[in-house]
């Protein structure tokens, strides 16, 4: 951080209202937080204007990890984009695969076999569990609980990554879904291993919650901080746990009926204050619901092929048209919008990243709070820079 005094006039045009006025005493400080800041989850910059400890303006600066994902995807074939989607939200690559496969399947009208749908649900929910666990770990890390909660989260994450690795061959960049199914079949041994890991998850969540949920420090730092009003959340297009923590019942698994989520019984956890603590709690409860879905899916998984035998892989040229496929990724609505002109690569390829759109309300949540809380509020949004900048 490099503090320097600034002229209030320089803040003109920095941002839109609502803007908190400085109280007129003392100088304003301009602080550039990032791009190298331990709490920014990578490379993200926030230009803060501070009146004492109070944040009166916040300007996010994006683009430090802009890797030309969309442009590259428009120059390579549909299938060759699949590994690039892994690197969007690199903590949960499998849900990215799923959303992209869903968009292409919508574009060409491809059906997916039953077993592949089940496998997708199993992998998607495992991804959700590990994403939420590690995002809570990172949040606690930023709160000052240096290392320990993150170690608990990563211990569980490693178990899930082992499952990913034994099925797909890679710990993080799975590249597993295909248009019309999944790349390889899961063996009974693998399914047993999943059952074992899923059976151990509730104990992990209980332990995690025992240490954190009632912790005085967590409550003091999280409750009533970074409040997001439901109206603003809806207007800004916020989705995922952020939106549900504000009390809006909107889960694409329930609303959009994609995949086979209609067959599973699960509840959508909602918060009612919209503060950091609610976001934390919604994530904890979502892990619990994911465990329920996993148990049902593991019980009901049928036999059969994992790939539609009629699915075309080589020389894949969809008819001209457009499609939008979206899923409930762990961070919110992840959508892929494709326009085909009949060629081997998409004419237009657009990602609707939940991280970026959830981040647009950052300033509204941070204004008026202390600069130390900005770190927590930012952490509670749960972003991944690969997806924000693409």
């Amino acid at each position: 951080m490099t503090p320097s005094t600034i002229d209030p006039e320089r803040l003109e045009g920095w941002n839109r209202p609502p803007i908190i006025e400085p109280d007129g005493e003392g100088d304003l400080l301009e602080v550039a937080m990032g791009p190298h800041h331990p709490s920014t989850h990578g490379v993200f910059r926030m230009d803060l204007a501070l009146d004492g400890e109070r944040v009166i303006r916040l300007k996010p600066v994006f683009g430090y990890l802009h890797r030309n994902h969309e442009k590259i995807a428009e120059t390579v074939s549909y299938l060759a984009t699949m590994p690039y989607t892994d690197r969007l939200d690199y903590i949960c690559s499998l849900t990215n695969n799923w959303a992209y496969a869903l968009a292409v399947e919508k574009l060409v009208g491809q059906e997916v076999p039953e077993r592949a749908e089940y496998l997708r649900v199993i992998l998607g929910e495992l991804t959700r569990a590990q994403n939420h666990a590690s995002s809570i770990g990172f949040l606690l890390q930023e709160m000052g609980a240096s290392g320990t909660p993150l170690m608990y989260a990563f211990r569980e994450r490693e178990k899930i990554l082992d499952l990913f690795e034994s099925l797909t061959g890679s710990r993080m960049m799975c590249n597993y879904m295909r248009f019309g199914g999944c790349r390889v079949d899961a063996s009974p041994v693998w399914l047993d291993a999943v059952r074992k890991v899923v059976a151990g998850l509730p104990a992990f969540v209980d332990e995690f919650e025992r240490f954190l949920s009632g912790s005085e420090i967590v409550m003091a730092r999280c409750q009533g901080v970074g409040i997001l009003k439901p109206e603003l959340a809806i207007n800004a297009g916020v989705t995922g746990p952020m939106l549900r923590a504000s009390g809006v019942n909107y889960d694409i698994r329930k609303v959009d009926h994609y995949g086979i989520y209609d067959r599973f019984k699960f509840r959508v956890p909602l918060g009612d204050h919209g503060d950091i603590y609610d976001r934390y709690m919604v994530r904890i409860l979502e892990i619990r619901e994911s465990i329920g879905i996993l148990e049902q899916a593991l019980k009901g998984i049928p036999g059969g092929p994992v790939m539609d035998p009629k699915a075309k892989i080589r020389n894949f040229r969809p008819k001209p048209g457009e499609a939008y496929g979206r899923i409930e990724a762990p961070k919110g609505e992840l959508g892929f919008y494709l326009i085909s002109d009949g060629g081997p690569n998409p004419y237009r390829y657009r990602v609707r990243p939940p991280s970026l759109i959830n981040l647009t309300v950052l300033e509204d949540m941070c204004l008026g709070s202390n600069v130390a809380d900005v770190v927590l509020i930012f952490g509670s949004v749960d972003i991944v820079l690969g997806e924000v900048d693409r």
Partner: protein
Amino acid sequence: MAVDENLKIELGKQGVFVTTVEELYNWGRRSSIWPMQFGLACCAIEMIATTMARYDLARFGAEVFRPSPRQADMMIISGTVTKKMAPQVVRLYNQMAEPKYVIAMGACAISGGPFKQGYNVLKGIDRYIPVDVHIPGCPPRPEALLQAFMTLQKKIDAQPLTGEGRPRHLDAEAQGEFPVPVEGEHDLEPASNKGVWTVPVVIR
């Protein structure tokens, strides 16, 4: 001058520990490499996983991630360096105190990786700063990062304190600051640091 190994063992049996200043100095340096807490992209998650319980980077004396470049001995370039980020990376490297080392982790950091064709991606950080260890992989497994640590430790161990190949902080004429690239009209300027990077010769 190294101590004769047999003599060392013989003296060790008598309860006498013999070493050289160089060995002791390098032992101290290699046993507590503090990396900079600095993540760029996907590889940063694997870097975090390396510090966690299963892979436990603490065994190598390197678990103390320092957020400030002033306190760090080593920089792990963990992920894609974009053209917007490259000046910041070089500046952070300049701010580190000597002796300093760099591990380029992952395909993106060493060459641009899968995003090489992108207009905004730097094709390898070794164009601007000297890299000691390259780790291929997308992302490399935590074991690969541990291997890189051990390679770096061997490298530090082998550095003499005087003469050719000594660490830069003992070399009064060594280059300490590296020019920070600036965003030019079309690309970063200069396109590479000529003293650090030369165009590789392709043998066909």
